[in-house]
């Protein structure tokens, strides 16, 4: 990038007008680099280098400290895709994503639509709905661990009052993934709610005034004005929720440790276990690459198909 003369735009107030000499003409570039240097250094060390290193490690067997010892080509990939455990992890991850993203976004949308009404005391409700954003993963998980407790947990006590059968929330493999998903939905609603509420408040008041004059009802306005105008926000929050769902770790670590029968062994937890408990850094890196590709594919698909349906103002 430095090899070419940098054309100067004389319209820029701080541009160097003297065109003589490459050194002078590239002044802006050098100054910009000075401002960008901290970010570049950090991104290089903690994002780009480790990403390449992850791909590199995925082709090797390593010693227990993580130093590559034997080149094995694609064998780590072959190994993880043949392993029952990783296949379960992928399935669990997809079930989890398919539960948490749609329900989480719809819940947040519902709450935001309620909280966007101009009613007395609405600020109180907004604060309540947003409050989950301040609850950390660890704190939320511990609270829900208690709620899911087989005997003294609130849910089973609630069921007992109505003489309904007790549920093994975290011990039954088919319930455990649902329980972890519910916890996650609850935890993530705060952020999604705030973003969607912001989106709602950005919609031009004028549009509703016109609709009101014409006598359009609530549902009609919702369908014809609110949802179309909200689509960029929804697009954003769906993308963020998808990416977040793939990155889930804390709730699994505290609620289930990946169990029972690996039914909640979500991909990041699987990577963590493979690398930092089993010291299998090669296969763990291969799993990391799969995680990266999942997120990449989801993001690209989102932008390719989602963007078309989005209505920008």
């Amino acid at each position: 990038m430095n090899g070419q003369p940098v054309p100067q735009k004389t319209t820029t107030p701080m541009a160097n007008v003297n065109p003589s000499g490459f050194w002078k003409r590239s002044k802006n570039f050098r100054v910009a680099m000075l401002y960008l240097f901290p970010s570049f250094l950090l991104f290089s060390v903690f994002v780009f280098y480790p990403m390449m290193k992850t791909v590199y490690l995925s082709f090797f067997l390593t010693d227990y400290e993580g130093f590559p010892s034997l080149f094995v080509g694609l064998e780590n990939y072959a190994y993880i895709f043949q392993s029952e455990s990783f296949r379960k992890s992928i399935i669990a991850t997809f079930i989890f994503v398919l539960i948490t993203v749609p329900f989480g976004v719809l819940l947040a949308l519902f709450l935001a639509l309620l909280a966007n009404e101009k009613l007395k005391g609405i600020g109180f409700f907004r604060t309540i709905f947003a409050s989950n954003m301040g609850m950390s993963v660890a704190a939320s998980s511990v609270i829900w661990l208690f709620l899911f407790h087989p005997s003294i947990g609130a849910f089973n006590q609630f069921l007992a009052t109505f003489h309904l059968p007790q549920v093994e929330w975290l011990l039954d493999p088919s319930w455990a993934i649902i329980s972890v998903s519910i916890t996650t939905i609850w935890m993530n609603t705060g952020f999604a709610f705030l973003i969607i509420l912001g989106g709602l408040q950005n919609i031009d008041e004028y549009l509703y005034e016109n609709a009101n004059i014409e006598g359009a009802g609530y549902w009609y306005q919702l369908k014809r004005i609110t949802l179309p105008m909200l689509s960029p926000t929804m697009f954003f929050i769906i993308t963020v929720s998808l990416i977040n769902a793939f990155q889930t770790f804390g709730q699994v670590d505290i609620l289930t440790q990946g169990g029972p029968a690996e039914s909640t062994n979500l991909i990041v937890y699987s990577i963590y276990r493979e690398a930092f408990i089993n010291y299998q850094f090669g296969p763990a890196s291969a799993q990391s690459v799969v995680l990266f590709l999942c997120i990449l594919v989801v993001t690209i698909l989102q932008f390719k198909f989602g963007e078309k349906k989005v209505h920008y103002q």
Partner: protein
Amino acid sequence: MMTRGKKWTFYILLMISAVVMFFPTFYAFMVSFMSSEEVMAGKLFPSELTLRNYQDAFDKLPLLHYLMNSFIVSISVTIGQLIVSSLAAYAFVFIQFKGRNALFFLFISTMMIPWEATMIPNFMTIQQFGWINRYFGLTIPFFAMAFGTFLLRQHFKTIPKELQEASQIAGLSRFQFFYKVVLPVSKTSLVTLGAYGFLTTWNMYLWPLLVTNNESVRTVQIGLKQLQAEEIATDWGVVMAGVIVVVIPTLVLLFAGQKQLQKGLTQGAIK
């Protein structure tokens, strides 16, 4: 204008939603005052408001020390992120240079790389630097932030170019323009980003779990896991007292800055 019936429908839905959404937090708060017998009996309210569980939580764990650690780490990351991102955003908005768009794209592309996919080499790097159990390991990797740069860039773009010209005429250098003009007029965005950075860092879980293995710099989130693992069978009241202590700083921050946070984040998300 809203009809009476419609108004009530909204209020009822709001009430139900608030009860459902806030119940876990409220219940945790109640349990934090209960004795273990009361917890076992499945009571909803404690019989007396005693701080005994809180005292126990602080006795059983160096909770105060963990809180200090979390404060140091969160504040360092917040300040680091603000400095690094605002410098980068400034270059992207106020300096014309070749390859600006390409470089900005490179910045944005880092958002596609999930932190968890790179944690293995990052852990090794931190180990090599000798940063395990040091504040450095918990803070410096998070200073550069594409989202923050993006958010600030959006705001910097709204600053009129005339201001830049005027400051040049007034004889301010580029850097003076940055910290005397650009930063002060962007105060709201900086506060939003700062609050967001503080929240996310305070709540961080996986990374502190990896790079701390003793009490020296361990954060309060990991302390909570420790407390839960030790006390789970015996005393839920103490565990919930720990939970409340951990969430109070972020809840206070959120209640104080909710409006601001919402406005700032939406701006970055949509424009």
